[in-house]
């Protein structure tokens, strides 16, 4: 009986103060902690991969006349990191920031406004500018014609093909 009490004391005495004076002294999170989402706005190409993979369905894409808006309501984020791993451009990043408490839920809303590129032919916005740039970058032969081809919407392309052929 007494023996077990003494043992308990010994077990206790081995570690002194494992609680931390957080939040007065900040805590350093481990290397690969999955924290707050960070979106590199200029990298996003608005492909919508993340929308499909997000388990809590917090990412939404809205199209306006000249903009595509990607909305992250990250108040609902479960920090699984699936969006980050599915993003082809690595535009979504998981940071180490974990102190997300806020009084205003809108602080956690992230909005990415992407300029749409207007079709050279019909003037209808059809592709996100970033995506276009990436596609142009990817082109093996960066000839004017190929670029123009990319800058036309699929409908006009079809029409052109019908007309051309």
């Amino acid at each position, binding site marked *: *009986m007494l*023996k*077990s*009490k003494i*043992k*308990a004391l010994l*077990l*206790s005495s081995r*570690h002194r103060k*494992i609680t931390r004076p957080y939040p007065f002294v900040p805590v350093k999170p*481990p*290397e*690969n*902690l*999955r924290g707050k989402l960070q979106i590199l706005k200029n990298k996003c190409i608005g492909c919508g991969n993340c929308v499909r*993979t*997000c*388990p*809590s*369905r917090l990412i939404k894409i809205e199209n306006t006349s000249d903009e595509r808006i990607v909305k992250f309501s990250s108040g609902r984020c*479960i*920090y*699984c*990191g*699936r969006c980050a*791993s599915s993003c082809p451009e690595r535009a979504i990043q*998981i940071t180490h920031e974990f102190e997300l408490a806020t009084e205003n839920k809108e602080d956690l809303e992230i909005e990415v406004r992407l300029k749409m590129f207007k079709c050279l032919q019909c003037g209808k916005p059809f592709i996100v500018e970033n995506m276009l740039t990436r596609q142009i970058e990817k082109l093996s032969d960066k000839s004017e014609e190929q670029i123009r081809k990319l800058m036309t919407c699929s409908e006009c392309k079809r029409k052109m093909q019908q007309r051309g052929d």
Partner: protein
Amino acid sequence: MNSLNDKISSLAKVEKEAENLVVFSEASQIREIVRLIILQGARFIHLTAIDFSEQRQKIQLNYFFLLLKERINIILKTELDSASPSVSSISDIIPGAIWAERECMDLFGVNFLGHPDPRRLVLPDDWPEDLYPLRKNFSYDFKPPVKSEASVELKKPGEGRTVIPLGPFYPSLEEPAYFRLIVDGEEIVDFDYRGFYVHRGIEKLAESVLNYQQIPFLAERICGICGFVHSTAYCQAVERAGKIDVPERAKFIRTIFLELERIHSHLLWAGLAAHIVGFDTLFMQAWRIREPVMQLCEMITGNRKTYGINIVGGVTIDILPQQMKDMEGVINQIEKEVRELREIILNDEVIQLRFQKVGALPEEEAKNFYVGGPVARASGVEIDIRLNFPYAAYSEIGFRMPIRKEGDVWARTIVRLEEILISIGILRETVKKIPEGPTFIKFTKIEPWQEGISYVEAPRGQLFHYVMTGPDGKPYRWSVRAPSYQNYQALSVLLKGGSIADAPLIIASIDPCFSCTERFETVDIKSKIFRTYTAEELRKCLKAK
């Protein structure tokens, strides 16, 4: 096995595929067939329904049984008319099926004739009648009107007796549940339960909007402590249904995390049990010992809990050699400390005074309610799904099963403390045997209308997931039966005759997981403190379904 086959086939149509024996029966034959199956020594696992109203105006009832020795699942299917589904109850044959039938009653509107306790179980008090949320014609985001007068009739105390309300909010309950203890002085003479305050219809959500790869994350959030078992069980069920072969390394990684989870869950339990009897030092120390495990998980996966690494087809991360080494260090450290902790607990006579002969569950009753996990093993029932029905990498690892006969809280404590040490052994072996290779396999398409059953030995007992694949890239039916679901039903036996002082301890001794049982989306895992809801908020919460 064959004899069973023969006997049943005279009554119903039997199909055998892989390890599943599917029995199609008429509704009128159910009781006889269930009796036959039980006579063969099968364990009752779960009862759930699948709504085929849109296809063929039927509701299919599925009774799940498990033949441990032959490693065979029995699925007993019967189809009821979806306009007025009714079938005779099997609760008198299997006391452990009471809740499952009540749940079917609530969610599918199946009427069980002769049920001993046909009250509402899952749905809130003010949920309207004749509205069955798991039927397919019920939209997942539909908000039903509130029923005005609303209360589930609870047991009344007799003359000179008092109701002691343990809960819904109570210091020693981490989550809301209402244990209605009817006491005579300090002695508990009767008991009633009202739970499912946090039921939010995860199954409905998964069946309605999520796809196969999204559900693991939802499944992981069923439980705040042992979430990984749920994602594993779900993935395994889908993998079985879709006949996907998971790479060996992924299986080993899953095993590692399952065991890590068991270690920290049991340590958490030991701490909580000590806390409930007022031994806060032990509580702090148990949780301190647990902490490196959590940090290890955080280091490897990026999160202390809800690792988020399971997906159908494998795991998303790989364990680096350096991390393996760290793990071994942590294991060595906690093994030493767990041994000390174990000695402290086992030699402390005051703890023995509190734990011994409290909340005893005789083996007979344990078998009646089909309890699982440490609760069953402490009552002398030899069941451990890791051994009986190996999954992940357990078939390649040898270990033993601790068994106690007494069935009291003390026995459960000993069993759990043993299991921590056994898990440490398993971890060592897994680390040694882990093969190289990919951790994830891509799959193309999953055939619809396939069935997958998966068991996982969760820290709290036998976990069961059932998936019926659907046509449009998501499951048609996903059913979860958490281990606490069965263990809970044994509480009526455990609590009667105990004293008020023992009630929180007894409730804690089955290591209940309300959120598992009620399939709840837990908000914050790290803090075991529950949020304070006002009655209004709670009502909103319940309506949010």
